[in-house]
């Protein structure tokens, strides 16, 4: 009996020790690889970022620049810190996010070019981070309703919505004019408080929640109105509709690759590779790619490669 126990114990110990070895060896391998010039491509954790990251990886690899895939790291601050610390060499950032969250401005800008210029200049000066050219797609906030409700009530723009709420029109399911939104949106000047001010109306209630579930909340009828991101694939797939921002309230969130100045000095060709790609990324192609991943369940890497092939950036 005791012999059996000792045997079991030693087998377990052996397994543990070998596990440590395996983990140790893997870690060493990674360290050795990182010595060469490789571009570590990072991204935030959501679909659009994963696709953009994969687009950069495929494009750079095609032009013979070795890359390391670190896409899906985490939130804005995590990826950005990694870029500044040198753990990540390149990722796509939004001009609006950089302006408010990273560079600490507290007023948003609603013109794409102006916002880009300010961010590009300030970031290079303060942090030696270079911004390449930005995309035509603008992943800004949008106010959404269910298509059926919007048609029934004749609401097409945010002004229509404000009018309906002010006139006391009965709200669609769940019966109150409430708003699902992510946490940032409920606080920012360019979000919920400013929106209500500019269009002169008030929601009865606002629920801050995870950005990933606002679309489902709206689809399932937990809320009558929701904030969303303009290029999300679920808007079309769930039969939701973007209300037109007729007073041009929401700021701009065009996307551009960002990297440290020294990286670009080492590999200046990155600029020539990624700029034409950024120019080709419009709202339709980005939404379509997001939808392919979110709804059809394709892998970001496949979707990115397919798009690059279709647009003729790789062969």
């Amino acid at each position, binding site marked *: 009996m005791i012999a059996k126990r000792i045997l079991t114990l030693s087998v377990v110990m052996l397994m543990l020790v070998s596990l440590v070895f395996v983990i140790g060896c893997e870690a060493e391998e990674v360290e050795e690889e990182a010595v060469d010039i490789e571009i570590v491509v990072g991204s935030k954790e959501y679909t659009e970022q994963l696709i953009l990251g994969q687009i950069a990886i495929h494009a750079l690899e095609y032009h013979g620049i070795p890359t390391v895939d670190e896409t899906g790291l985490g*939130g*804005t*601050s995590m990826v950005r810190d990694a870029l500044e610390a040198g753990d990540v060499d390149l990722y796509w950032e939004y001009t609006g996010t950089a302006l*408010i*969250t*990273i560079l*600490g401005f*507290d007023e948003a800008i609603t013109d794409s070019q102006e916002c880009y210029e300010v961010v590009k200049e300030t970031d290079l000066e303060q942090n030696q981070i270079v911004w390449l050219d930005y995309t035509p797609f603008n992943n800004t906030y949008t106010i959404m309703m269910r298509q059926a409700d919007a048609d029934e009530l004749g609401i097409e723009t945010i002004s229509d919505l404000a009018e309906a709420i002010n006139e006391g029109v009965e709200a669609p399911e769940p019966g109150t004019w409430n708003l*699902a939104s*992510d*946490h*940032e949106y*409920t*606080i*920012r*000047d360019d979000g919920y*408080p400013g929106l209500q001010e500019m269009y002169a109306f008030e929601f009865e209630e606002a*629920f*801050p*929640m*995870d950005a990933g*579930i606002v679309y489902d*909340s709206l689809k*399932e009828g*937990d*809320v009558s109105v929701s904030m969303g991101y303009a290029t999300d694939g679920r808007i079309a797939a769930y039969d939701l509709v973007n209300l037109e921002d007729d007073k041009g309230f929401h700021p701009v969130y065009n996307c551009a690759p960002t990297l440290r100045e020294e990286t670009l000095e080492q590999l200046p060709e990155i600029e020539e590779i990624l700029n034409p790609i950024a120019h080709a990324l419009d709202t339709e192609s980005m939404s379509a790619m997001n939808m392919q991943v979110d709804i059809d369940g394709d892998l970001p890497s496949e979707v990115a490669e397919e798009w690059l092939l279709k647009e003729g950036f790789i062969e």
Partner: protein
Amino acid sequence: MKNLNVMDFILPLFLIAVGAIIIIYVEINPTDSLVARMLSYSNMFKALREHLLLMLVSMIGAIIVGVLGGILLSRPKLYYLGRIVENIINLGQTVPPLAILALFFVIMGIGFRMAVFALFIYSILPILRNTFAGIIHVQPSVIESAKGMGMTPFRILTRIELPLAFPITVAGIRTAVVINVGTAAMATFIGGGGLGDLIVAGISLGRDMVIFTGASLAALTAILLDYIIGQVEKGLVKWS
């Protein structure tokens, strides 16, 4: 005796004072206009109130259901059912809090009530398990001798089993409080409000002061609640 009572109030008063100082300090000295909006008195008190309500409602419900359930399952007639439930609970405890919230979101939607319900379900588990374990581990000889003295099963439960199981039950309740505090901060992901609103908004906007305020208020609440339960435990031991 009187001295002891004064001592009892020092820690909670200290905690409340620290909380008040933090609230007043950040209200007066916000780093920019966004921070000022997030850390207005109305916003902070709303978050704090929601957080306390989330915790108190779910904890009170969980203590009642957990203790009663534990007693019920420990009756000899339900012994095997009790064993099965205990195993299911042990499995349930391995599910991470965020996953519990996500699961409930899929089934029942969003909002404050939803978050309370999820917290309630999750907090029952340790309380029920500990009450059950405490009671069934009372020495059979003790119960036999109680029976020999002619005690009815109800008297055995209230005079022998519950007092002996009491410390284990309270340990379960304290575990539940700890879990509850951590999970209550996540209620914000399904629109449940609470101090998580501040923490997550602070993280996504990169404003450290907001994160610090939300997190420290949540921590102070947790220490305070744990202290109160400890005092109640002491009081009950003296009383019985």
